[in-house]
């Protein structure tokens, strides 16, 4: 029930936004995330944006145990492009 999907905000109109999820567009409310803005990646739970997805944090998390895994450096450098 706490499922949430990542989406990108492609249009904002007051507290309603249009988001793109897996190639489809959908309406969502940003009443729980008032500082959301155009182009943000957000998590949508039951029609509401609940949190922004921070790309910098995502990359840092991936690097957390990077030295432990063999042969993954290529994937990480891809991300920086």
């Amino acid at each position, binding site marked *: *029930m*706490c499922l949430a999907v*990542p989406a990108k905000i492609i249009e904002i109109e007051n507290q309603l936004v249009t988001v793109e999820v897996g190639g489809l567009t959908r309406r969502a409310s940003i009443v729980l995330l008032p500082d959301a803005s155009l182009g943000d990646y957000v998590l949508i739970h039951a029609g*509401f944006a609940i949190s922004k997805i921070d790309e910098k944090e995502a990359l840092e*998390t991936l690097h957390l145990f990077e030295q432990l*895994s063999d042969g993954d450096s290529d994937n990480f450098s891809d991300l920086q492009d």
Partner: protein
Amino acid sequence: MSLPFLDVFRNGPQVRGLLAELTMRLEGGTTRRIMEVCGTHTMAISRQGIRQALPPELVLISGPGCPVCVTSNADIDRFIEISMLPGVIAATFGDMLRVPGTRMGLAQARGQGARVQIVYSTLDAVELARNNPDKEVVFFGVGFETTAPTVAAALLEARAAGLTNFYVLSVHKVVPPALEALCAAPKLAVDAFLCPGHVSAIIGPDAYLPVAEKYDMPCVIAGFEPVDILQSLIMITDQLNGERSVVETQYSRVVRPDGNPAARALMESVFDPCDAEWRGLGVIPGSGLSLKKEFSDQDAGNKFDVDVSYSREPKGCICGAILTGVKIPTDCGLFKTACNPGHPVGPCMVSSEGTCAAYYQYEI
């Protein structure tokens, strides 16, 4: 839409590397029992095959984090009875539809003439009230801190729109008091908690401090991809090996240090903490959310007087013990025989996040 910086959290070689690292840290040590609190984690772990891939020294135990599953039969029966009243439209998220109550589930109630409407968002339920001014729309408020703010938003929206026919039956629950109750229970044999990602996006990591500090339980807030889960298990293992008990956030791309204050403020403007009954855990003080006095005219619990004195838990079903990590689905005499997805006896078999459903689909 593909998010390249998220796809990497499913990267195969990365997953194998983390698994090897985890195995190395656990090898030859004592068995560590870690509870994945959240139902969405349970499903992800089962679907990704993580439980079987783990080294034998690490046992993952499912917890009480499926809101549908921890809802008591009395609460389910109450909503079903309300749905049968004339002039009522019962609005609910889809995962409650097939959950059995004492006499029937909502799906059967619908077969008997109840108007039960599945909604994707709480705002859809408000829309139902707007479009059906001659009906009373009752939304079943089931869910943790992730969902409760969306119900608060709907109540405020209905009020702002002047709708007097929108009601909520709130059986919302909050996670930290349940974890404390689990820690205080003598039967619990768990060494650490893998904490929910999206609940934590709202409440923030500090909400688990009492659990970590008072009960010496390592807590790591985890994302839902294989890399997230394995990284989090390594972080927990490091805490256990180092005899530390702190709250850490692996899912930092989503969970901010202060959570989501706007969502919390909205939730607190509509709900007050109350005691709540959890299937398997009993009544936990301060673990529920009831509507504030100002919203009593939208409180379906006040508005609709129904008798559910007949309520009882299903016979032979061990969902309660499964939800507290005391037993696993294969311990249940009904599992895969009398109880299956086509004919669920308890909620854990039918909820999309239920432990029995996860085991049935992916593990057995």
